[in-house]
């Protein structure tokens, strides 16, 4: 075919297109933008929370600077490197899962709330546990005093889980589960035993756990044991699923709390990826393959300050994960390289005028959806100050439904792919994450971020930097440093029914009095043997849970064996 070149002064072939844009945009910036901006006070600091300077305008020149290559850097949804999405149809055919995190007081009251949430349209429920349960204390333990049922529901034995899901079939909901970061094998066993009680095979429902103890030492604070045995026990739960329930999601490696604690989303992602590698390495050392293990893990990214960084972070993270699994771990199956993500929509929620938090969390959540998140939660507008009430929980679910169905947000896949700004940020965020990961490797990996104080230092410095940015007004915050208002903490803040604790204690005493004590003793002895012999503890824990052993009885075995964590007094 004879191609006729266009002629004349308008010929695009007469100059290199990229460099032309680069010189033109430099000209625009110097000759047009700068004079217009001169003498005007900056409205704010144009820098992301992660420290990336934001330019007034992005052009194809930025893509060229980053050597942007469509096929190498983006590809297609459901295909390597999964930047545009981990599944082929993404929100167009297969919308994100509308999820709710909920739990308070006693199992029976909580069960009523779960039914309401399902009626409102929740497709996944993650149970919020109270602090004694999360920290491995029964409700009748001295340390549990004043905390039973406070920030989540109290679970002492399988009996509580049975009440919690009475009338809610595990296979009628896309996923169910809980956090249980420091008690991973126990919550796994409780949710496995729930299926047995309901007569539903493990292959017919999906359990999701957070089960990520390493970030507890760094950011969340429910750690029980020293980090090394805690990570081993968490990997026991994953290993059990490889064998018995490969359709489950027994581990969610979290950026969320690390970022919220001050690390920033890029360094937070680096720390979380280092944690993920630690768990993966433990599992590979047991003889499992990366193709068996990686699909059972997913991640919980987080960014709540900068809308476009949220989108960039999710896209960069999927790309990094895919390359890490393929190039460093030798994964061959797509599902081992395609990272699923759980997100929890936040913004800069304020204590003053809490209804404004509906707007903030909606924008924060929208960014996650535009970034292609798989499982999406949204914080209640009152969540910063209390356990969400039924009304705020409903608003959260409705907001998710609006994002999923109205405005055309989900009509096309990765709608911001190719945006000069978003692709530039995606490349910059990716570099920040990889730099962070390289620093962590240099100091010795995930456990070293805890033992050397690296993570704590990064977080405190970040938290102090954020506080200064708010105090100085560099980071605008409506009702806090602009149009400032007094905080409003309602009377309901984390306050349940005062008699709930009493009733929980009675129920626990009843369970202990009526269970087959011989069976409990034998089961606990087997947990102890499995622990001492360094076997996977999960089968023995499952038997103990079936016998109505308490969470505290099982954790006490581990406390005796491994000792307790030593809290850091650094700040």
């Amino acid at each position, binding site marked *: 075919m004879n191609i006729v070149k266009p002629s004349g002064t308008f010929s695009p072939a007469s100059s290199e297109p990229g460099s032309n844009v680069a010189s033109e945009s430099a000209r625009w910036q110097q000759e047009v933008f700068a004079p217009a901006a001169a003498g005007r006070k900056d409205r704010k600091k144009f820098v992301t929370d992660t420290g990336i300077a934001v330019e007034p305008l992005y052009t194809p020149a930025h893509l060229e600077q980053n050597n942007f290559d469509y096929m190498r850097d983006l590809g297609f949804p459901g295909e390597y490197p999964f930047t545009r999405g981990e599944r082929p149809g993404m929100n167009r055919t297969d919308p994100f899962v509308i999820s709710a995190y909920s739990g308070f007081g006693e199992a029976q009251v909580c069960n009523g709330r779960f039914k309401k949430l399902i009626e409102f349209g929740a497709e996944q429920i993650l149970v919020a546990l109270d602090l004694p349960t999360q920290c491995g204390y029964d409700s009748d333990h001295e340390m549990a005093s004043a905390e039973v049922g406070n920030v989540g529901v109290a679970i002492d034995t399988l009996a509580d889980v049975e009440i919690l899901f009475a009338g809610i079939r595990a296979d009628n909901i896309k996923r169910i589960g809980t956090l249980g970061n420091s008690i991973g094998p126990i919550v796994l066993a409780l949710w496995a035993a729930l299926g047995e009680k309901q007569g539903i095979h493990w292959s017919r429902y999906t359990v999701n756990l957070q089960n990520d103890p390493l970030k507890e030492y760094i950011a969340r604070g429910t750690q029980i044991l020293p980090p090394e045995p805690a990570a081993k026990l968490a990997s026991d739960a994953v290993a059990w699923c490889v064998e018995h329930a490969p359709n489950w999601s027994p581990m969610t490696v979290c950026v969320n709390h690390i970022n919220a604690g001050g690390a920033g989303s890029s360094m937070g992602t680096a720390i979380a990826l280092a944690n993920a590698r630690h768990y993966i390495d433990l599992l590979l050392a047991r003889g499992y393959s990366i193709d068996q293990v990686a699909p059972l893990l997913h991640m919980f990214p987080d960014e709540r300050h900068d809308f476009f960084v949220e989108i960039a972070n999710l896209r960069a993270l999927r790309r990094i994960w895919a390359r890490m699994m393929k190039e460093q771990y030798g994964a061959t199956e797509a599902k081992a390289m395609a990272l699923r993500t759980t997100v929890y929509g936040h913004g800069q929620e304020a204590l003053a005028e809490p209804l404004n938090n509906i707007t903030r969390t909606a924008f924060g959540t929208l960014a996650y959806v535009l970034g292609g998140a798989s499982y999406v939660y949204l914080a209640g507008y009152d969540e910063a100050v209390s356990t969400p009430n039924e009304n705020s929980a409903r608003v959260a679910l409705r907001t998710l439904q609006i994002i999923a169905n109205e405005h055309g947000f989900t009509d096309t896949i990765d709608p911001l792919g190719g945006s000069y700004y978003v692709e530039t940020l995606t490349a910059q965020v990716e570099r920040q994450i990889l730099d962070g990961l390289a620093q962590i490797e240099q100091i010795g990996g995930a456990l070293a971020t805890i033992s050397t104080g690296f993570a704590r230092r990064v977080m405190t410095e970040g938290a102090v930097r954020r506080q200064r940015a708010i105090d100085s007004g560099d980071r605008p915050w409506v009702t806090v440093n602009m149009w400032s208002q007094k905080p409003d903490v309602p009377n309901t803040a984390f306050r349940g029914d005062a008699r709930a604790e009493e009733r929980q204690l009675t129920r626990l005493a009843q369970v202990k009095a009526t269970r087959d004590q011989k069976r409990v003793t034998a089961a606990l002895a087997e947990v102890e043997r499995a622990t001492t012999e360094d076997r996977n503890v999960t089968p023995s824990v499952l038997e103990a849970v079936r016998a109505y052993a308490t969470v505290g009885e099982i954790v006490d075995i581990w406390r005796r064996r491994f000792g307790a964590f030593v809290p850091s*007094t650094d700040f």
Partner: protein
Amino acid sequence: MSIVNSEPAPRRKIRILIAKVGLDGHDVGARVVARGLLDAGMEVIYTGLRRTTEEVVRAAIEEDVDWVGVSILSGAHRVLLPKLRKLLDESGASDIRIMAGGIIPQEDIPELQASGVSKIFLSGTPIAEIVNYLVNETAHA
């Protein structure tokens, strides 16, 4: 070195113990406040997570502090703060004052103040406000 010291005795710096009591694991606020008070020239000690009220009282007395600043976000403040006050008083440390921060409903503040908690700062309070309060309220500062 001169035998006669004409300089006035240096005023003692404000000493404060920042404490986490109970099972609440959120300590970012506690650490940011600790760092802010340190930067403001105070002597600051942090207990670390998950301390009992007894442990906090022991540390406060051993460290000879002027203040205990308790961070609490789990809703256990109505039990733990009065208990801390009572234990300090019973240990002969009535002069050690308590301030608290975190998520505490307005409705609870009068009750907590009546039980001997000197001041409640809700989360979001600028560090400078806490510094000013401590400087004004500490007798020797």
